[in-house]
């Protein structure tokens, strides 16, 4: 069978929350061995953000944590303790990549900056993904996805048009975007190492990555001084566009009428009256919205979406977080996969969006339990004796449960 591109690559993963863990999960999907490292005292808070009721170890029973940490191994190490730091520096020579998303100064404060890692392994690849990067006047700012969205320019572009009020994206949008860019950074650095024998230090600012997804807005601003105007769901390049309420609770379909041809096709398939008298563009758009809304209002969203799409007019059902798991197209493409988990009943998890048709990445295993692979990594990979490992455990440097489970 064909190998995945990162087969044989080992990654020390110091990341927490969403952006970093999302990156390393994708790296795992591409074949890398990912060792997730958390301190028994400072662990990934996502573990307990939505714990299941009635379980003894909530940090091991979160579907949220699971979906972004599956296919990884878990090693606990308190990096603030000299013994934990020592163990980490023994691990680094076995790793190709170290990934971290601490605030800019934290890794250096731990005494684990790029220079130190390079002493442990000369061709190490370090990818740092702080919100604002490792340098510059704003490096000390603290930021999560929604903050990144504000600081990148994207939030200024989203809104209904009411008094210029920006609207945040409903997810911490900066996180997965930075995560996917970090995956690319790791891969490029591996290509660089293959060509030159050298490692790399990647300084990725999450805010800057997000700005690259609105490049045309910087063209408009720098060439003509134009700043974003909120048009709600409309798009100036099309004849008409909107989101229309359908039958049922909170069911909507987005439709783009790109040009007069789309309007003609839409009217033919729906029976909507096509003729539009002479009127201003705004009035015409409002009239089109009114007619489409009237047709949609009593129809099922799936019927609206498929009828309009079959007529060759772009439509998209506003799939919510329930209906998206029931979508027949994703079902047929086997996008949702159920993996057993030792603490939870099965649920649908997304497979890799990177469908390598030949190498076929596939989900392997649930997210690791807290410290599940301590023995395997410390004893097996690093060759520590049972006494050494017991000492680390007694000192709280490693553990199979958080030392402070209430935090998070």
């Amino acid at each position: 069978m064909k190998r995945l591109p990162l087969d044989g690559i080992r990654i020390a993963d110091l990341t927490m929350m969403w952006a970093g863990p999302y990156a390393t999960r994708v790296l795992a999907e591409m074949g890398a061995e990912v060792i997730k490292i958390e301190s028994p005292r400072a662990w990934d808070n996502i573990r307990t953000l939505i714990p299941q009721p009635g379980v003894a170890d909530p940090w091991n029973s979160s579907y949220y944590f699971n979906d972004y940490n599956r296919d990884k191994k878990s090693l606990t190490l308190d990096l603030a303790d000299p013994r934990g730091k020592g163990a980490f520096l023994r691990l680094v020579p076995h790793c190709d990549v170290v990934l971290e998303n601490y605030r800019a100064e934290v890794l250096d404060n731990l005494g684990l900056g790029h220079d130190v890692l390079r002493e442990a392994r000369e061709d190490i690849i370090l990818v740092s993904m702080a919100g604002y990067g490792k340098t510059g006047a704003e490096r000390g700012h603290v930021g999560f996805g929604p903050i990144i969205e504000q600081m990148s320019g994207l939030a200024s572009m989203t809104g209904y048009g009411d008094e210029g009020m920006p609207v945040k994206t409903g997810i911490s949008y900066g996180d997965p975007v930075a995560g996917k860019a970090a995956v690319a950074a790791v891969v490029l650095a591996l290509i660089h190492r293959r060509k030159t024998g050298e490692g790399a230090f990647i300084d990725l600012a999450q805010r800057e990555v997000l700005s690259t997804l609105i490049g045309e807005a910087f063209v408009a601003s720098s060439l003509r001084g134009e700043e974003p105007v909120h048009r709600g769901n409309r798009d100036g390049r099309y004849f008409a566009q909107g989101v229309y309420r359908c039958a049922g609770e909170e069911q909507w379909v987005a439709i783009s009428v790109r040009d007069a041809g789309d309007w003609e096709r839409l009217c033919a398939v729906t029976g909507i009256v096509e003729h539009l008298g002479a009127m201003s563009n705004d009035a015409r758009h409002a009239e089109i919205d009114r007619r489409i809304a009237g047709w949609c209002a009593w129809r099922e969203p799936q019927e609206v979406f498929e009828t309009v799409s079959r007529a060759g007019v772009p439509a998209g059902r506003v799939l919510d977080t329930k209906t998206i798991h029931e979508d027949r197209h994703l079902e047929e493409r086997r996008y949702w996969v159920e993996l057993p988990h030792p603490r939870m009943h099965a649920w649908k998890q997304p497979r890799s969006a990177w469908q390598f048709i030949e190498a076929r990445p596939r989900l392997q295993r649930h997210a690791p339990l807290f410290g599940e692979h301590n023995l395997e990594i410390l004893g097996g990979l690093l060759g520590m004796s049972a006494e050494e490992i017991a000492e680390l455990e007694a000192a709280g440097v490693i553990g199979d449960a958080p030392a402070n489970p209430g935090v998070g």
Partner: protein
Amino acid sequence: MDDGVLAGVRVLEIGGGVPAAFATRWMAGFGADVVRTESTPGKLTDDEAVYLQTGKRRIKTDAATVQRLALAADIVVEDRKPGTMARAGLDPERLRSEKPALTVVSITPYGQTGPYADFEATNITSFAMGGIMSLTGMHQREPLVTGGSQALYLGGLNAFGAAVAAYLGSLIQGEGDWIDISLQECMAGMLELYGPRGAYEGVASVRSGNHVRAAWGLYPCADGFAGVCALERQIPALFSVLGDPDLDDERFRNPLERPNHDDELQAKLYGWFGERRKAEILELGARYKVPFGAVQAPGDLLANETLRERGLFDEVATGNGTARIPGRPFLGLAWRAGQLSEPGADTVAVIDEWLGEGR
């Protein structure tokens, strides 16, 4: 390695909408020789064209020549409808069998297979089908599309990562791959906690506008809009910055009690933000380690000192003056800014270099 990590890598871009053009833009920046075949006019706006065509060579040629160029390439990136490549003599499976080291990346709204594969789509319809839209916007109003063309850009971002991963695989194993990127799938797997919650609990999450909760939201401030996203461990620092003695109370201190008094806390935050300017809010955030942000417009960022110091923006000469565009996505690997080429300007040179004798 000043030429870039992808120096010597040949990339053919076919289709040329935002997804393919963005994926190959980063390839060009990191040193690849990206050749863009001219696409249907109007696929990119003028501003998108400035951003996404910079650093690439542009050709106009016949189908037979495009077929030969595809086999001379290391990576082909395309965003045409499923089946279009095959009808143009560019069937990815055939290209792959003729040149096993080749990587082909196909980006479409719904992927190459499945009942919706042939449906038309735009940015907003893809954004809707990916699930993010159901979570975006005010609860009492219709769902809202995020600004720009995020569904299309996400396709390009994913295609870039997948393409370079497959290229690395081809360096190691001698074999590339054909990668089927669906915009819907790129988004359906990035629904934060809401996606897995819907799958596990079987209920849809509702959009929460600008306030997931009081300490996780966006507020009007004295000179625009600013926001806060505080985790539990950052609540004490937030409260101390707010400096309101009322907050030193069980109903706000206790994380289990606080949600019952969210409106009250939100009112206090409206008041606090409303009296302050963005610069002051950001400065307090950095000083007291509170996750504050401020809504920056592109013009603000073009004037931003940090971004100037870190060299985010490239300059590109256009017929309408010099544009400044986001360049390298991260620091640490060589990046070249590139220039804008005229349509078809590089046809002769590319055919000579890629298909010339002795190659």
